[in-house]
Structures are given as structure tokens and as C-alpha cells.
């Protein structure tokens, strides 16, 4: 069973415009799943993680409804069929499109 990433509006341009990226692999941990994600969509890596490989301070990664900061970080196990969300923290970073998908995009990436 694959796992699915939910991509926030600000990063969709790096995922071919997709809201959801399905990884046809069986990653054991969040780290494995992320590595698969950025092999497919390299621009996402440096926006979600620092050059030292840590998830950025104001970005949260959830497996299902659990923030991985509470469940073992990047080593959090990933079950088959899991849904992994990348969501900016309350400090800012969500676009209007994240809030209301019906609003037209004012900034479109090519």
C-alpha cells in the first residue's frame, strides 16, 4: 500500500501543482517517505528541511493526526496507506488557497 503526502499551497509549484503526492513505495519511517518525496519533487526538500536534515522550525509534519515531533521525529514509523501532511505552524505560511481552495491563485508558478 502506498503512502500519500498532502502538499501545502506554497509548495505545490514544486510538486507539479498537485495537492496530494502518492508514493508508490513502502517506506518504513517518515524519513524514508520524505526521501522518496524529494527524489520525485526536489524543490520541496530545502523548503521543508534545513541543510542539516532537520524539519524546519515552523513546519510541522503529521502522520495521520499525530505531529511527528511527539512520536519519534523523522524515525516515526509509517503504516501502509498512511497520510502524511506538511503544514506550516501557526507562525505563518498558509496561503489563501490553503484556506479556501475556491479562491483564484494570484501567484502561479510555471
Amino acid at each position, binding site marked *: 500500500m502506498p503512502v500519500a503526502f498532502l502538499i501545502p499551497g506554497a509548495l505545490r509549484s514544486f510538486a507539479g501543482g498537485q495537492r496530494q503526492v502518492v508514493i508508490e513505495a513502502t517506506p518504513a519511517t517518515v524519513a524514508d517517505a520524505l526521501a522518496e518525496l524529494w527524489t520525485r519533487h526536489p524543490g520541496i526538500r530545502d*523548503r521543508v528541511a534545513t*541543510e542539516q536534515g*532537520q524539519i524546519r522550525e515552523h513546519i510541522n509534519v503529521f502522520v495521520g493526526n499525530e505531529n511527528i515531533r511527539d512520536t519519534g521525529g523523522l524515525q516515526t514509523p509509517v503504516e501502509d496507506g498512511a497520510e502524511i501532511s506538511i503544514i506550516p505552524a501557526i507562525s505563518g505560511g498558509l496561503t489563501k488557497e490553503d484556506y479556501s481552495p475556491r479562491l483564484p491563485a*494570484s501567484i502561479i508558478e*510555471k
Partner: protein
Amino acid sequence: MIDRVLGRYVIVSKLGEGGMGAVYRARDQVLQRDVALKFLAQGLAQDAQRLLLAEARAASALSHPNICTVHEVGEVDGEFYIVMELIDGKPLSALIGSGLAYQAIMRYGAQIAGALAHAHGRNVIHRDLKSANVIVTPEGLAKVLDFGLARRLAGLGKDEVTRTLEHLESHGSLSGTLSYMPPEVLCGQPGDHRGDLWALGVMLYEAAAGHLPFRGQTVFELSDAILHGAPPPLPARIPPGLASVIQRCLAKEPAQRYQRAGELQAALEAVQSAVFTPAPAGEPHGLRTTVHRGIKHLQVRDGDTLLLVGTMKGVFLLRSQSRERWDVAGPYFHGQAAYAMAYDGRAGRHRLWASNVGVWGAFLRCSDDYGRTWTNPPDAPIRFPAESGATLKNIWQVCPGRTSEPEVMYCGVEPAALYESRDDGETWSLVRGLFDHPHRPRWAPGAGGLTLHTILLDPQNSERMYVAISAGGVYATEDGGRTWQARNRGVRVVHTPEKYPEFGQCVHKIAMHPARPERLFLQNHWGLYRSDNCGECWQDIANGVPSDFGFAMAMHPHNPDCVYIVPIESDEFRCAPEGSLRVYRTRNAGESWEALARGLPQKGAYETVLRDALTVDSLSPAGVYLGTRSGQLFGSADEGKTWKKLLDGLPPIVCVKAAVVGARPASRPPRTARRSSPPKKNKAPRKR
């Protein structure tokens, strides 16, 4: 020779024959392991032998995953041998074929550069680096052999070099060693660690092209090519970032190369991540671009004045023909702060640079069409090396290089570090000389973080550069970035018991006029100073200002005696004194200051002008511009005499830069440029 016993070693089989002598597989009977055993060439003079042994012993102190370990140096009956780690793998020379994949070149290149950095740091120079001297293991590790075994050539004079060359030619090993020899060594100079960087450049070129960069049928032809020839262009499959790294290694003049192996390693690591995806053809910089729609962009013509306004929530661009009426476009980079902006008009460009920082990290982006499209690199090209443990927080300054070097760019970042690009900002390398400075661990962050926020280039001396760090103080290099010295004598510190330390000053801004590069002005976290000797010592010039606290400082474009500042009441109350926003100007290099307030708000204006939010254009009379933390933008078209509000209601302004489109980037001072002499004293410790 087989079955011969040397001490604890029994020779098992012959592995090969090198320029230095034969190499055997031997069994270490004590440790029960196989080793490589190499006999040193016979017939060397005793002095040369002793030198060789000393070097081999030094090399035996090296311990690095990419260096073949030397276990022992021994002697039996006047025959010298070296016992080394036995490496399972193939020489790089055998793998190259018609050229390696660029990913492999970068990977091996970075490993070899790391090995050189380790050795050079211990005063061991290879001097005979070549693709036959690097073994690649099945695990993908590049291992450098024979460190320190080629010292012989170092002490030779010109005649001896010629003899050596004849020897090489007569022995048919011409393509072996001479092809990798740096020009300075060919000219008979002793050469230094930068010769190894040349040799690595030759290897990288060879791996990329499938053939050597410099070729010839005879020693004369080959030497001529090395000394004077340009290598043929690399194949198109090699990413431009890698090509420019190789090109820099192959600069004929050692001073033009990377100065340290660590820098080369960082550059190779940076291109490794920068070329994650091959660039689609036809895009500026080969990077992905962002198109901003729903914004009315500027229509810019030659001669227009441009204002680049960086705010906490995006970038705004303004243009004007007369500096009376301004068109406005933006916000670009919705929601992202832009602390650094620059206009690059060198070599016929009209390029805008902006840094972006937000929850998604810090990126540098540029536009060649006044904001319609911006580069958007998939991978962050400015990144700290893994071993530093540091992460990029923000980019505080973007600084195009000198007019004479239109491909060079500099960046000042947080945590405090200087980055340099030699390829138009496509790939960046950490300036190691400053990053490895022994003072760095003791630099302390100010309220805005530990930042390198100002970069000044001496236009007359390409080796000299100044940077300002909060809170580290002013640092200068006189050798193009290799070594840096603290230049803070006379600048007072209020936040430590020691009032005049060597470094640790919280400098907010420094300014220099291109016609007087030896003279600097400094706005400190309390204190206003001038130095007449390249920052060697500073004198107080706070004569008649309401406060010597402030952030911003800007140099007049044509008058080297004229400087603008915006005083702030105090460290505690960071607002315009008495609620009246005034710019102060000196026209006599700080002997006296006058208030410029006409048109600026004078009542209840508790404004703050941050360090990069005051600037000048290059016209005459000069335009002066400032942006406030409350989002107001003011401009003066008459050198500051009268001011007009150009915009308000913007997000907090952190950066304002001005440029005249199509104008030459540096001002043409009316005075005759004077060449300054380097400062006499140099007390700060130098770092290799």
C-alpha cells in the same frame, strides 16, 4: 622478491609499478592483515631520501576516510619502504573512459577536496595528485594515495625542473605527472597547497571531458599549453556550476584559484545539491522561475530611477523618470521578508536581486525583467556544510562584485558568514577564511541575530574587502578572503565590561566611498566613527548629533566627505529622538553634522529606520531615500534638503536600494582616485 621477509611483512605478490617504485601486496604477520608495501625509487641522493622519509612520516600522521593510510616507514639494508593500507578498488584513471557522470565527478571531487583540506591543515601537500593516484572503492569512496611522496620536486630549481622533465619524457611517463603540474611549478617556483587544487582541477576536467585539459606531443608543447593555453570547452552535459568550479581550479594565477581546499569542497558540495534536476533550456540561470501574475509590473526605460523596497511581507518596486512621480509594483514574494536587495548593472545587465525568508527557509532570487519573472531554485544554493552543524537563517546582504569581475557576487548571512559566487550567483561557496576565524565562536548575536550585514569592496584593490558583523565588529581581508583581521580599535562597546575589546563590537553599518577606499565611516550600537586607515583605528565623529545611536548610514554617491545617518534615541527606546524624524548629514567627513528635516514628520513620529533602509541614487543632485518600520517611504531629489512621502501603509520596511537603469554601477567620483597603501600594522592572528 615474492616471499621476501621485511621485518614483520612477507611479500605475497606484485601489485604494480609506479613512478616511485614497485608496489607489492604483503602480509603483516603480527596483525594478520594484508597491506600494500612500496619500495622507494633507488638511486636517490641521500638528502632527497631523507626528505622523502620526513614527508612520508608526516603523511603517516594523516587520518581521513579519503586518504590511504600510511602505517609505517621502514628501512632494510639501505632500502626504504612504505607500508600502507591495502585498498580494494580501481584507479580513477581507469574509470574515466570517455567521461564520468557529473554526479560522480562532484561526489569524488568533494571527497578528494576534503582529503586535501585535511592534509593541508597539517602542512602536508601532495604535489603529485593525478587520477592514477586516486583509488575508487566499490563502496564509492575515493582514496588519495601517495601523500607527501612527491616532495622532491619542491626544492628543485629551474634547471633541475628541466632535467626532471627530460627524465620524465625519456621514461615515457610524460602524461603521468607533467600534465597535472601547475604553471607556477613549471616556472620553477616552489609552489604551495594551491598547486594541489590545480591538480584536482585537472583531474575533474579529465573526468568530465574524458581527456586531459592540456595536451601536447612534446614536453615543450605540453608545458606551453599549461602555461598559456585555455582548455577546450567541457561537454554540454556538464552543469555550468561544475564547469565554473573546474575553471576556477585551473586559473593560471594561484591567487585566482580557490585559496583553500575547504572552499573547493564547499563549492563542489554546493553544486552537488544545486543540480538536483537538470535545468530546462531557455530559462534564466537554468533555474525554475516564478511568474508573478495579478500584479501590474513596472515599465522601465533606460535612465529611470528604480527603488527596490524590501519589507517584512514582500518586495515592492518603484520607478520614476523625473524622481517626481513614482509608479509602484508589488508585493512580490507574498508574505516573505526581504532583508537584502541589490541592483546589478554590470556587464550590460539590469538584474534585480532579492532575498526571501519565511517559514520555508531563506532563498536568493533574481529577475532580469524588472520583476515579471524571478528565479526560484529548487535547491537552496546557499547552505552551510554538514560538518558545521549550522543552518542558514537569513540572507542580510547581497553585494555584486567589482565592475572588473562581473560574474562575482557576495552574500552576507545569518548566522554570520560570507558567501561568494563566481558564476553570477548560480552556485555559492562559504568563505572559509572568515568562517574558520578563531574569533567566530565568541561572536554574539544582537537583537536581530548574529548577522553579517555589510560587505564593502575596495574598488582599487581586488584583494581588499571589509565586512561588518553584529556583534563581531569590522573584519578586513587583504588577500582576497583567505585571511581576515578584526579592525575595531577605538570603537567602544557598552554591553561588556571591557570597553575597547579587539572584537565583539555591535556595528550597525559601515560605509566607504569608492574614491577613498582607505576611509570608512561606522554607525555603531552607540557611537559614530571614522577611520582613515582601512579600519586600523577609529575616531569618534559624533559632533552635534542628537544621539550617536542609530542603524542606517549611507555614503553620498559623488562627495567622499558626505555621509547620511538617521539618529535613534537610544538602545532602549529605538525611535527617532523627540518623535521627530531627521536625517543628519556631514559634508566634512564628520567634523560637523546638520539636520535635514524639511518634509519629514516632526511631531509624534516615533519612527525607526533600520540598517539597510537608507540609501542614495547615483544622480546629480543625489537622491536620498529612506523607509521606516511603520511602512512609510520618503524620498529627496535634492541631496536631502527637502523630502516627500512616496508611499505609506507598507509592511515594515527593512531594505531600500536605489539604482539608475543603464547607468554605470559605481559612481564616477569627481576627484582623482587615490591609491591607498595597505595598513602597516596587523595585530590579529592570521589563519592559514
